[in-house]
């Protein structure tokens, strides 16, 4: 069930954010990282795929035209995780995941919700109130809500932005495990290029609302790309364990960027 994204255009009023963007077919079982500088259109693209922004173009999953589906049918196939779970909600962790599921008999739903918490290692928080959690823990609960719904495509908007180093790696590892195990697909907007390189099967690099590059991290991450897209002088090296590392030396001056 591949995801096909063809000729996507998104505009806010007269301002075009995404320009005629076509991605190669994204295969199931893969974790794709959307990377690029601020304002490149990463989150807008993700929101458009989730049906939260009006868009033009073609979007299909396994041959099914997603734009023709009603919100309920589409939500079974794609689910979007916003950057934050808002504060001030008087719900427990487990019941917030149950609320995300909405349908099903009680014991099945309870099992699905608990397993989602366990998958990212936060089942011990099940009985705590959302309001008593830190921002990072709330972000983990938010991810558990998405996982519990078992959509075909997970759309994650900066899923690690509030997490410490440990949980950044754990969350990306568990998302990768999940998509491989159940032959799903995940698209994650990531700001940390090293985390993206370490965890994603493919990178999609956006710049000014257009596709700049796509492919496996080791194939496309180059000093040239980093200079063009991020405006930094950087080296791409492998550490002693073979992992790709981006080492940033300095920011380029406006004159150098031009």
């Amino acid at each position, binding site marked *: 069930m591949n995801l096909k994204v063809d000729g996507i255009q998104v505009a806010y009023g007269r301002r075009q954010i995404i320009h005629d963007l076509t991605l190669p077919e994204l295969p199931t079982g893969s974790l794709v990282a959307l990377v690029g500088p601020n304002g490149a259109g990463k989150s807008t693209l993700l929101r458009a795929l989730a049906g939260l922004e009006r868009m033009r173009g073609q979007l299909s999953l396994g041959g099914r035209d997603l734009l023709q589906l009603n919100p309920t049918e589409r939500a*079974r196939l794609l689910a979007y995780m916003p950057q*934050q779970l808002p504060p001030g909600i008087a*719900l427990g962790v487990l019941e917030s995941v149950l*609320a995300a599921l909405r349908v099903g008999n009680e014991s099945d739903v309870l099992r699905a919700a608990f*397993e989602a918490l366990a998958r990212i*290692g936060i089942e011990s928080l099940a009985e705590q109130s959302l309001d008593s959690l830190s921002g990072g823990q709330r972000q983990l609960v938010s991810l558990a809500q998405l996982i519990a719904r078992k959509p075909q495509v997970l759309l994650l908007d900066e899923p690690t932005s509030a997490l410490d180093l440990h949980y950044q790696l754990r969350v990306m590892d568990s998302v990768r495990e999940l998509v491989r195990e159940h032959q799903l697909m995940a698209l994650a907007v990531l700001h940390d290029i090293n985390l993206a390189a370490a965890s994603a099967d493919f990178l999609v690099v956006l710049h000014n609302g257009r596709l700049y590059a796509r492919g496996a991290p080791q194939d496309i991450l180059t000093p040239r790309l980093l200079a063009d897209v991020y405006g930094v002088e950087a080296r791409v090296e492998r550490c002693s364990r073979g992992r790709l590392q981006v080492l940033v030396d300095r920011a380029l001056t406006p004159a150098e960027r031009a």
Partner: protein
Amino acid sequence: MNSHVQGATPLDLERAALGYRRLLARRCALVVMLGVLLVVSVLADLASGASGMGLGQLLAGVFDPDSLSATERVIIWNVRLPYALMAVLVGAALSLAGAEMQAILDNPLASPFTLGVSSAAALGASLAIAYPLTISWLAPSGQVTVAAFIFACCSLLLLQAMARLRGAGVESLVLFGIALVFSCNALVSLLQLLATEDVLQQLVFWTLGSLARANWEKLAILAAVLAVVLPFSLRAAPSMTLLRMGEDRARSFGVDVRRLRYASLLRISLLAATAVAFVGTIGFVGLVGPHMARLLVGEDQRFLLPASALVGALLLSLSSIASKLILPGVIVPVGIVTALVGVPVFVALIFRRGRRL
């Protein structure tokens, strides 16, 4: 993924499921307890008053009206019972409307009072009082109720129209509601300025909010509105719980948020407009009731909506008792009591919650 979050104890599925079922049982028990308290409060409301009739005598009169003298029958059937039941129904309607408003507008300050419904009703009523029409089949008092209802509905229709506008966010709706409050209040003040002394007295009395306007016909209409609206509210409750966790999340999980918001505003229109048209401006119940209910049963709207209705009913029933006790021999308009009693209680609850968190 075997390790656990720091500071928390391991938990298995069975224990988590048991804990969740206990939580649901506790919430059900709290809702039942609110119902019991409401019955006790209604009985106390019936028993309180200047006539000196005991509760036993009152109950006997309710079930066997022939056992009463003509005066006692009038006191019970035309005054005590309609007042007590109107307090319950109006409290439930305003608080349920407030709970739905707070959920769909994602704003803890939303209520029929703060978003202009009561003010619009007051404007409609004031116009009908100041400039009554000559309609053979509708008495001036009926005209006031009808005008209040029409204006309250219009205010909510305007809010609905705003909600349907593309690009109008929740903030725009709330700001529009606040603007409506000020506009309607300004127009009511203008009418008061232009009114004769006699009309001015009526205008002021209407805006105070009083259960003295209760009668069996109004009770039947309000009960019917609640009976029709409540099942639809409960049906929308799971989607509203999801909406509390963010509009994008709810939409991406399959909730048609625009439709949910529109249907909810329709229910709020019916509830708030009917209640305000019948008894006038009664503030704070629609704002405070849902907050108190939230402190008791949390944010799961399946419990919060019925609990809000019960808390609102209980608050207004208790206010009705207080309205008879504050000044001996005088029934203070209940709208004044809800503000006097409700606000300190509300502030105390907020501070208690603040310390706990």
